[in-house]
C-alpha cells in the first residue's frame, strides 16, 4: 500500500474511533448512576382503631429519604370485610388518582382512567389495576409498605 493512502486510513480510523468512544462515554455520562432497586419499607401511619369500617380513607404522611422530606399518601379501603392499601399512582402514565365518593370510584385527572373501589380498572386507558400496598397490623398500630 502507498504510504499516503496508508496514513490517510490511519488518520480516518483514529478520528472515527475518537468519535465513537466519545459519544458512547457521553451516553454513559448522561445515564443516571444511582439507580438502585427500590426496597419496601414499612411506615407507622395510624392506630388500628382509626381504620375505616367501610369505605375509603386517604392517609397522607411525610418520611425522610436521603435527607429529604418526601410527602406521600395512599388509600385504605375497607370493602366486603377486608382491608387493603392502594397506591394512588395511576397505572397508565403515573398521575395521581382521587377517590370520588359519589361514584364510588378512583378517577384519574389526566386521561379519564377509572378504577372501582378495589382498584380494578373499569374505564379509560389504564392497563393494570392500582398497585396494592401491603398493610401490617401490630400492637394496635397500622404499618404500610412503600417502595422507597
Amino acid at each position, binding site marked *: 500500500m502507498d504510504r499516503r493512502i496508508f496514513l490517510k486510513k490511519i488518520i480516518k480510523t483514529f478520528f472515527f474511533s475518537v468519535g465513537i468512544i466519545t459519544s458512547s462515554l457521553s451516553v454513559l455520562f*448522561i*445515564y*443516571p448512576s*444511582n*439507580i438502585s432497586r*427500590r426496597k419496601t419499607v414499612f411506615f407507622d401511619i395510624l392506630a388500628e382503631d382509626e381504620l375505616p369500617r367501610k369505605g375509603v380513607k386517604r392517609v397522607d404522611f411525610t418520611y425522610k429519604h436521603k435527607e429529604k422530606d418526601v410527602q406521600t399518601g395512599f388509600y385504605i379501603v375497607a370493602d366486603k370485610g377486608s382491608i387493603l392499601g392502594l397506591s394512588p399512582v395511576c397505572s*397508565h*402514565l*403515573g*398521575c395521581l388518582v382521587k377517590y370520588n365518593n359519589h361514584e364510588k370510584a378512583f378517577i384519574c385527572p*389526566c386521561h379519564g382512567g377509572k378504577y372501582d373501589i378495589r382498584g380494578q380498572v373499569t374505564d379509560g386507558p389504564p392497563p393494570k389495576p392500582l398497585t396494592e400496598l401491603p398493610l401490617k397490623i401490630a400492637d394496635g398500630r397500622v404499618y404500610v409498605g412503600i417502595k422507597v
Partner: protein
Amino acid sequence: MGKIFDWIDRRFNLKVVHKRFLKRSLPEKITYFHCLGGAAFTSYLCLIVTGLLLSIYYVPSELEAYDSIVKIQHEVRFGKVIRSVHNWSATLFIVFIILHTLRVFIHKAYAPPRQLNWLVGTLAMLLAFASGFTGYLLPWDQKAFWATEVGTSMASTIPAIGKYIMYFIRGGLDVTGVTLIRFYSMHVLWIPFFMMMALWVHFHMVRRLGIKRNL
C-alpha cells in the same frame, strides 16, 4: 454608517459572499405560502431573543425555579411581556413549522433532488418539539411536573428498553430536581445548538437547490 461598513467590507468581502445568497432565481408563481418557513424562522429568532433574556433571571434549581419564575412575572421590568412573548413565539413556531411542512408536502417539494432537505426539515421539527417539551417543565409548577411525569412515562411503554429510556430522560427513577437541570441544559444549550446546525444546512440547501417550480 455606510462608509464604516464599506471600510470593513473592503477587508472582509462580506457583501460579495452574501450576494449569492440574497440574489437568487425564484419561480414566477411564488405565493404567501412560501413565507411559512420564513415565518417559522422569525418565531425562532423571537424565541432566541426572549430566551436569552429569561435566562438572566431564571434559576434552574429544584428549590428556586418556581420562585424565580414568580419573580420574573411580578418584579422584573417587562418580565411578564418577555415570558408572554416567549410562550407565544413557541406556540407559533410549532404552528408555522407544521404549516410549512404541509406546504412542502402539497407542492411535492420533498421530491428529488430535495429529499435530504425534507429529512433535515423533519429533524428541525423534532428538535422544535423537544424544545417545547423541555421548556414546559421549567416553571416547575404542578402543571409542568405532571406534564413531564406523563410525557416521560410514555417512553416507558416501549417494549423491553422503554424503562431505561425513561430513566435516561429523567436522570433517575422519578421526575426530580435532576430532571429539571437536564431539561434546562437541553432547552438552552443542546437543542439550540443542534437547531442552528440543522437550519444552517436547511437554508443552504434551499439556496443550492432553489425553490421548486410548480405546476
